[in-house]
């Protein structure tokens, strides 16, 4: 069978841009209502997407004054979506750092059962002191420890799913999704990840990343085709190229400035105080990625942009547009389909985790215009061929383990 493109929509509250919630014609607080999520999920199911994807972290974003943030717990949202849809896959992010594996394995296994085998678990580690303080800690656990724990934790959860004899879901057990781009994260992806949610600006690098993950999976005794690599893709769709560019410009204009500076400083772990928008960022401010504390994936990406393009602070903020560093494509449905097709056909991606610029309007444009174009090119399904998330992704049910279950290290 020929390769099939896979598409998820990441319902990242009001949209991936820092100013999404201010976009003209948008209800600024819609992402604080459940209907925002259920209605986009229904639309995604009509468009025959593989899954909806929910990001999450157990804390209040300190930047909440200036941009909307994730604010509903994913398993309760996805259970409600499950009640109101029939086929669309349901991927939720849940922390391996701050959950008890016994409870999480049970709850996620039950959500998979209740949804008829449509659930996928995006395993993340939770960085940052803000979340740590909600769980009795005073500071964030170190990167290496977080990833060691994530590996142990994931193996325990998968082993618990595999051991179920009652309330077993139609797909056997949930799909394991993994996102980390760090060296620790890539190793975890190769070992247990079935869907890899990556972040890449550059097609050559993405090709190398996918090849590395597939080779790594093979080294762990897995089949390379049992890993689906889906880079994040921020989309700005316009009826004409000029319309798309104008939409992108407008998103830059409505980006709350304080938010953009604060977020970048947080991502890089440095202070931007005193640096004006027209000054370049001194590269010597940046440490090596493996020494950075927070998200290494975004750190690497931003560092690469700073080193190769030497942008001014203002220009860098505009390039990132508060969107967190995923690749942004701007254009007509045909141009965006060209980009997706190129990445897909040349081995840089098995599909994309689509992050529309503004929700719901940006997703309506994607589902209404880009998806039909991909379908005309024979790249995307015209209907679901199965009922489970594993069916949609073309994933079988590989043997779980055997893992050597080790005592779990607390994220301290």
């Amino acid at each position: 069978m020929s390769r099939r493109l896979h598409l998820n929509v990441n319902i990242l509250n009001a949209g991936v841009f820092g100013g999404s919630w201010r976009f003209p014609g948008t209800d600024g607080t819609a992402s604080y209502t459940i209907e925002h999520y259920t209605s986009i999920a229904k639309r995604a199911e009509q468009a025959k997407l593989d899954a909806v994807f929910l990001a999450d972290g157990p804390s209040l974003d300190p930047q909440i004054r200036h941009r909307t943030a994730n604010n509903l717990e994913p398993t309760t949202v996805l259970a409600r979506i499950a009640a109101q849809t029939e086929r669309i896959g349901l991927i939720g992010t849940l922390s391996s750092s701050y959950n008890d594996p016994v409870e999480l394995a049970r709850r996620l296994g039950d959500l998979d059962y209740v949804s008829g085998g449509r659930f996928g678990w995006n395993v993340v580690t939770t960085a940052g002191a803000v979340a740590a303080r909600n769980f009795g800690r005073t500071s964030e656990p170190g990167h290496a420890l977080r990833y060691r724990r994530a590996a142990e934790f994931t193996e325990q959860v998968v082993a618990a799913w595999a051991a179920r004899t009652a309330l077993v879901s139609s797909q056997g057990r949930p799909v394991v999704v993994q996102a980390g781009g760090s060296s620790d994260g890539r190793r975890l992806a190769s070992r247990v990840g079935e869907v890899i949610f990556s972040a890449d600006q550059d097609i050559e690098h993405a090709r190398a990343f996918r090849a590395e993950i597939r080779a790594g999976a093979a080294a762990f005794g897995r089949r390379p085709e049992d890993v689906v690599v889906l880079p994040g893709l921020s989309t700005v769709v316009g009826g004409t190229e000029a319309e798309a560019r104008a939409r992108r410009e407008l998103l830059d204009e409505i980006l709350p400035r304080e938010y953009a500076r604060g977020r970048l400083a947080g991502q890089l772990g440095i202070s931007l105080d005193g640096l004006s928008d027209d000054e370049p960022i001194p590269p010597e401010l940046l440490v090596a990625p493996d020494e950075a504390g927070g998200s290494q994936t975004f750190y690497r990406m931003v560092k690469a942009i700073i080193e190769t393009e030497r942008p001014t602070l203002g220009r860098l903020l505009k390039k990132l547009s508060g969107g967190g560093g995923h690749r942004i494509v701007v254009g007509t449905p045909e141009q965006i389909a060209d980009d997706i097709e190129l990445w897909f056909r040349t081995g840089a991606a098995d599909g994309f985790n689509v992050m529309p610029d503004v929700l719901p309007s940006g997703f309506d444009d994607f589902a209404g215009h880009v998806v039909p174009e991909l379908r005309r090119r024979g790249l995307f399904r015209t209907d679901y061929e199965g009922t489970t998330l594993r069916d949609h992704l073309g994933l079988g049910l590989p043997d779980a383990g055997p893992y050597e279950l080790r005592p779990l290290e607390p994220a301290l």
Partner: protein
Amino acid sequence: MSPVIQLALAVGEPAAPPAAGPARGPVPVPLTGAAAVAAAAREAGIAAIRLLDGVAAGHVLDPTVVAAYLAGLHDGLHDGLHAGLGYIAEVPTTHNAPYNTARRVLSLDRATGGLAGVALRAGGSDEVSQATAPGPHAAGPAARWSEYAHVLTRLWESFPRAALIGDQEAGVVVDDALVRPVDHEGAFYRVAGPLDGPSSAQGRPVVVADLGDPDVLDVTAVARSADVVVAGRERAAGADAALTEALRRAGRSRKEVALLGRVEIAGDDLGPGDAATAATLAGELRDWAREHRLDGFELVPTGGADAVIAAIRALTPLLTDTAGSPASPRPLTLRAALSLPDPAAVAA
């Protein structure tokens, strides 16, 4: 005031029938059967379904997942006469860090428009909190329950609804001056907060305390945070007076709490042909409630979905004062359905 009725239900997969005799207690109802039970419960005017966790007679699905799913199924009925049935998810302290429980239950409450609650079960710690637990754990599950419930109620108030502004012109989503950390430091937990989402339409989710399960909670332990107290047959006598006194000591009034008497209804006792049995039982229960000043009942039918539905249909009209009267619109929130006032602000 008409008695409040809450239905206890386990959803999942029954265990294979034992060789001798029926299983004791509630039997898990399959998910499809649970949807039918919920529809019947709504129609009968039941205030809420308490989704049980961990019953003896089978495998139970996670109550927060089931609550979110069942409430989602009936979303289309949210307006009009058949609007909102409440869902109370049982969550044990064991294996659940309080910040996670608070988020999950508040998410459910917001998604249902203020129709959710938690029946917090006394137990042990969780793997995450254990690693940094401030003190030794000699104090036991009742003290842990009190602290845990208090943390929940404080977290649920940490991000007031009024703080969510969404001023697109000014570029301000949230008035962050109104959002306050809780900075809880107790014997069992340290939780900074605030939560990531605003408070719900009913102020905050309802907290249910069960004095019979697992038999470690008393009125003193639950007085600070409980909105509903459930007492079994053997604990009901004197519960009202003891609860009134415990609430007074906690600075609260008896009107702020609904005291429900727990009633197990065995198997197929109340089929369609058992009108006389139902009338007798309902009479006894109403007398019992009057005698002990109970505000209502928690019904615990022990049969399958059909038996549960039969029990609801036979008994509920006889226990409430609405029989024969024209259907009145349902209250909009679970607190209103339980005849509870808006919650008072929680002191640190």
